[in-house]
């Protein structure tokens, strides 16, 4: 009673696509963050799937690193968002374009 590996990979691809499209389409920084998380976890899912399919624990180990990095990234990212929010009272990604070169 287990689905074959490619299904999981397909799910991961769909999740990644949703995340990528969301990141491109939405302007709300928090939503964009969630999309990034979605993409990261899609990647995690592929890692785990391959770990199972190839019987290699390495793939599962990498997932932990990814989770740690994602958590750290969220901390920094949310910090920046809060700082901007304090100044501009909005959380639209386009507000950051004053940082352009």
């Amino acid at each position, binding site marked *: 009673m287990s689905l074959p590996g490619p299904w999981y990979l397909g799910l991961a691809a769909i999740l990644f696509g949703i995340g*990528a499209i969301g*990141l*491109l*389409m939405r*302007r709300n920084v928090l939503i*964009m963050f969630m999309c990034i998380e979605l993409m990261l976890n899609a990647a995690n899912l592929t890692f785990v799937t391959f770990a199972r399919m190839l019987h290699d624990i390495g793939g599962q180990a990498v997932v932990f690193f990814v989770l740690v990095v994602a958590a750290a990234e969220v901390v920094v990212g949310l910090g920046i968002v809060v700082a901007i929010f304090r100044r501009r009272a909005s959380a639209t*990604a*386009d507000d*950051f*374009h*004053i*940082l*352009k*070169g």
Partner: protein
Amino acid sequence: MLHVAFLMPLLPLVGFVLLVPLGKRLGDPLAGWIGTAAVLGSFVAACVTFAGLQGRPEATRAFTQTFFSWITVGGLQVKAALFVDPLSMTMCLFVTGVSALIHLYSIGYMKGDKEYTKFFIYLNLFVFSMLVLVLANNLLVTFVGWEGVGVCSYWLVSFWHEREAAASAGKKAFIYNRIGDAGFLVAMFLIFSKTGTLNYAGVFAHRAALGAGGATAAALLLLLAAAGKSAQIPLFNWLPDAMEGPTPVSALIHAATMVTAGVYLLCRVHAILALSPDARWVIAVIGLATAFVAATIASAQQDIKKVLAFSTVSQIGYMVLAVGTGAYVAAIFLMVAHAFYKGLLFLGAGSVIHGLHDEQDLKRMGGLARFLPWTYATFLVGWLAIAGVPPLSGFWSKGDVLANVYAKSPALWAFALLTALFTGYYMSRLFFLAFTGDPRWQQAVGDHPAHAEPHESPWTMRLPLVILAVLALFGGLLGLPWVHSFGLTGWLGPVFGTDLFANHLSRGALIGLDVADGIVAVVGLSIAWRLWRKSADHPALEPVFLQRVWYWDDFYDTVIGKPGQALARFSATVIDTRVIDGAVNGVATAVKSVGTQVRRVQTGYVRNYALGIALGLAVIIAFIISRTWWS
């Protein structure tokens, strides 16, 4: 007694070192006295060394005092050492002696100048450099002194550098000297590459290695060096301009130091000149041409110092002529006598200028004999000496040169005698214009109502005049033509040995030549007497051609100056602004415009960047997939 030789150059250096930090505090006139004492001490050291040298037998009258090894690189060994022999000794004696008198004179002349101490600092350094030049035992140390003399002359000629003319005269002197220095350097390279040493004794011992062509080249390059320093054609123009310096400087440059350096150098390297008769002919012709050209120019100048300057050029021309003839002793004899009477004439001219409150125009002098009796009497001696009137020093020394030239080539002699005629004429013209006739100086003195008439100079200025006048009067005793055991011939002869030109003139011929010299001098003098004693206005005798120095400066200006300026202007306006600035600005503009375009990529919108990343990812994936499929 000989070991005091090192004091000769050391004492002026001590004076210099003392005056640099303390000069301002000591001030006027104490700084001047210290400077004078330093050079006087040097003269005393020279006298002591001379006495010691005379006490030795003829063959051993030369020694070297080594201080330290200066440069040791491979085969090149240069020692800082003094070489004392009768030739350098003679130079030292009159350089230090005349310089000491000029220092003493300067105490009075420079009184009240705001740069009083600086003047003596330079003066001491000048004498030190000259003594290094004279006493060096190798070409490189000579060159050090050579350059020291050059730079000191630059400082002293442009001493009153607030005046535009003085500043540019200093530059001119320096640049002309640099051209000569190039000749010196190349000659040194050539000699070292052939003989492997720069030591005079070593070079002479290996002189055969130079070969005929090498010797000629070295001699001509050294002639170029001497032409720069001693103001010979084609580099003589700087000397008259150097008159912009204070008068004691003119006296120092013309009489004792600097201009004699070139002739001394040529005498020092007599062994190289001996190898190349062609080069010696060139030297003789250059000397004679300079003597003649400068003498004609001197007869049309209006500035008292310019007349003397051109007369120096002319007299040095005689010395170079003597060197070219091979009559080195005659050249040195004339140099010594010239130091006496030209020092005297310059200091006398300085006294006149001092008395007239800085008036230098001969046309605004006249009748000064009554007001400046000391100057008048001493100047009279100097005038008769340089004109070659017997029995003063100029007659004997010039006669010695002329006799040797006659023995070498009567054609050169005839020209030299014509020059002697000019010498008698222009010096007499100067004398009559300045000291006799009607006073024309009212305007000059009128600017200073406190002094209604010219005033005689203080004793510090008169004493050197008197001493030099005595020397100019009796200096001829150093080299009477019939007495060879006594005087300069016997003293200097062994230095030159067989390189010395031996004229086999009979006593009758010598007397005849001397009589001719005397007649020529008197003729030149009486022509000037007829023309200039009463009237100061003969425009026909002062053609523009001579006043403008045979258009020599104009020639250089047209041939070198103008094209040089045009090139500089072209470089400034075209090369610099268009090519160089264009390249620099062009690069900057290109970078800037590219940057302006590229910066638009950075929109600042996160989604743009995300799209970029996504597209890049898509491309990479597509690439990998296509690779997989087609492989």
